[in-house]
């Protein structure tokens, strides 16, 4: 296709026109005109102007405080002058002479800032990036399994003294087992109830004495009475006072305190520690005669009864009772001599029921 000059020129002109149409606003845009400031005004009359000026004058006048007194200049303070002491009375230090600085033989260097580059910091030990494979640091395997570490802190280790192989031998009125012992370590609570007061003693009413039948008068002149009748009559009239209570001891009775003293003297020697369980269920009653000094006559000591066990267990309990009487009666039991007739024969009941294991 051949282009003539006219066609080319027309194309250029049309192209330039289109470029001007598209980019003309951007390339040849006019500068923005600055905005003109506008102030609003209003019209006032003369009277209104006078009122405004009067109000402004009143507003700027200073306020006057009617109650405050006017400030006054303070009076000048009295001049205080110190007493002058005579110079001779004060010792003044001597004026020290200035030291003479010795001159150096040689010219001294003038310190100047160093211009040298500071030395590099000394290398220090640091952790290597790679671990060291030390075969000698391998932990040894334990023979037993190591317990896991607990998150709970361990209690303080309290060193306990070594326990003896056997429980200590000691006398006791009751047996305390290892299990009971741990329970008894617990703090004891106070009692929750108190014992009731003792009951009032019963009043014994006096028994009225029986009236004795009137004695018939004996006629003076009686028939022939044989000796047998006389004896029978005498028997019937014999005073029976001593035989009225044949079981009563002839001497004064033992007080409860005296009986308790005897009981304590025997029971402290009544050792049940080496008895069988069967014998511990057996109660025996023994009889023994005492001398006037309170010592038992061991040849008179016999078992007069038993209860609650076999014959063999009663025999063992009797041996223990005999041992107790012999041991603690060796020097004589504590008994009142004036009541010997009361305690010269004893009947002792050894009842281990309260000592038996339950």
């Amino acid at each position, binding site marked *: 296709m051949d282009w003539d000059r006219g066609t080319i020129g027309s194309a250029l002109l049309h192209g330039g026109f289109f470029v001007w149409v598209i980019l003309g606003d951007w390339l040849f845009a006019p500068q923005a005109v600055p905005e003109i400031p506008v102030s609003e005004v209003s019209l006032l009359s003369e009277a209104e102007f006078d009122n405004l000026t009067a109000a402004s004058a009143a507003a700027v006048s200073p306020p006057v405080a009617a109650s405050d007194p006017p400030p006054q200049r303070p009076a000048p303070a009295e001049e205080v002058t110190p007493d002058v002491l005579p110079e001779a009375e004060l010792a003044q230090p001597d004026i020290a002479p200035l030291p003479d600085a010795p001159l150096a033989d040689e010219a001294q260097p003038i310190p100047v800032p160093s211009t040298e580059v500071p030395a590099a910091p000394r290398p220090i030990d640091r952790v290597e990036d790679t671990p060291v494979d030390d075969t000698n640091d391998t932990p040894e395997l334990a023979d037993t*399994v190591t*317990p896991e570490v607990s998150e709970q802190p361990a209690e303080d280790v309290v060193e306990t003294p070594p326990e003896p*192989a*056997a429980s200590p*031998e000691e*006398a*006791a*009125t*009751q*047996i*305390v*087992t*290892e299990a009971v012992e*741990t329970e008894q370590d617990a703090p004891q609570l106070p009692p929750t109830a108190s014992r009731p007061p003792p009951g009032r003693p019963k009043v014994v009413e006096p028994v009225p004495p029986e009236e004795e039948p009137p004695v018939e008068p004996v006629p003076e002149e*009686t028939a022939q*009475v044989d*000796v047998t009748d006389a004896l029978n*009559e*005498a*028997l019937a*009239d*014999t*005073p029976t006072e*001593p*035989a009225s209570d*044949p*079981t009563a*001891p002839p001497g004064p009775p*033992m007080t409860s305190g005296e*009986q308790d003293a*005897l*009981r304590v003297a025997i*029971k402290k020697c*009544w*050792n049940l*520690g*080496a*008895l069988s*369980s069967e*014998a511990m269920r057996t109660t025996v009653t023994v009889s023994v005669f005492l001398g006037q000094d309170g010592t038992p006559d*061991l040849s008179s000591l016999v078992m007069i009864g038993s209860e609650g066990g076999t014959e*063999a267990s009663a025999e*063992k309990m009797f*041996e223990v009772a*005999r*041992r107790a009487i*012999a*041991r603690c009666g060796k020097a004589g039991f504590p008994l009142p001599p004036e009541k010997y*007739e009361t*305690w010269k*024969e*004893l*009947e*002792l*009941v*050894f*009842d281990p029921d309260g*000592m038996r*294991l*339950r």
Partner: protein
Amino acid sequence: MRLIQIFARAALTALTLMTPATLLAEPLRIVIDSGVIEPMPYAVPNFIDEGGAGEYAANISRVIASDLTGTGLFREIGPEAFISQVTSFGAPVAYSDWQAINAQALVTGAVSGSGDQIVVKFRVYDVFSGAELGEGMQFAGTPGSWRRMAHKVADAVYSRITGEGGYFDSRVVYVAESGPKNARLKQLAVMDYDGANIQYLTDNSALVLAPRFSPTGDRILFTSYATGFPQIYLMSAADLSIRALDQQDGTMTFAPRFSPDGNRVVFSLERGGNTDIYTLDIGSGALSQLTDSPAIETGPSYSPDGSQIVFESDRSGTQQIYIMSAGGGEPVRVSNGNGRYGTPVWSPRGDMIAFTKQNEGRFHIGVMLVDGLEERLLTSSFLDEGPSWAPNGRVIMFTRQGAGEGGEAALFSVDISGRNLRQITTDGPSSDPAWSPLLP
């Protein structure tokens, strides 16, 4: 006549007044209802060497003293306190000298030897009563059995003083342990009751548990893991020969114990995840099931008369002790306290049951009457278990293990009163003791 009457009346009155009132009066009656419980002091001077006894005389008297003192019921008075010496077996006893040192019992004896035989004779005296307890007695044996002879003398002395049989001439079979705790080696061993004369009955190639003596002491039952599973075995104490009892595939048997006549074995059998109690006739091999419950029931023990069996079961939800007839039937629960009860063992006397109790983090060895009343806990520790009765039913031996890695198992004994808790010296960690009957 009047005079006669007056004279007769006066005479009778005087006669009445002069009658000894004490012949008619009741003696003073005192009730002693409390005493003391303490070891009884006694003395055992060295037995007299009557010729050929050598060192046996002194050794025998020392073993006797060790036996008596070891019960906790007696306290020996040492020879340094003696006032008089026993120079002759037949010499009269100076009671006052022994009373002065408060020896309440005195044991004298003599030993003579000739050839391969020694003879031990002894007497026991009640010092304060001034009388002999029983009559003199003697034993004869070989010099190698001198310890047994000493134990027999101690048994006789114990019996004469306490009124019950002794337990010194007896043996104990137990499990001797060795090695680390996570790889424990166990083997059967037997010893005298006091830890002397230890002998091993098996090697430690297989785990063994719960040995039990027969009523006559000639056989031993035990549980072994030789096959990988627990099975009960019977051993002859004479030649140590072993044979398995009731070995069935797919079952585990354990916790065996002889019947009082020694002809049957009661044990636990696990089949299909359920454990019940069975008996086995040793002669015929006949098996009988006694319980049939989904619960775990184990630890059976015959009563001494063989009519009942005590065992443990969790059929109530917790481990408790039950008693049933020896032929089976509905059991009766006897333990009623707090905690869990196990390993019940019937006393040789038949009146009590020993057991292990776990309560509030502590283990106890305890005893109770067969009806469950009068429960009494004798011990308390980190781990106490497996009680075994002494032949006289007075002492219980059991296993005690301490806490932690250092807590080794050891054998302990305790009196049924809870007194005299002491450790039995063995040659290493030990567990599962079982007492034999008194040796013949």
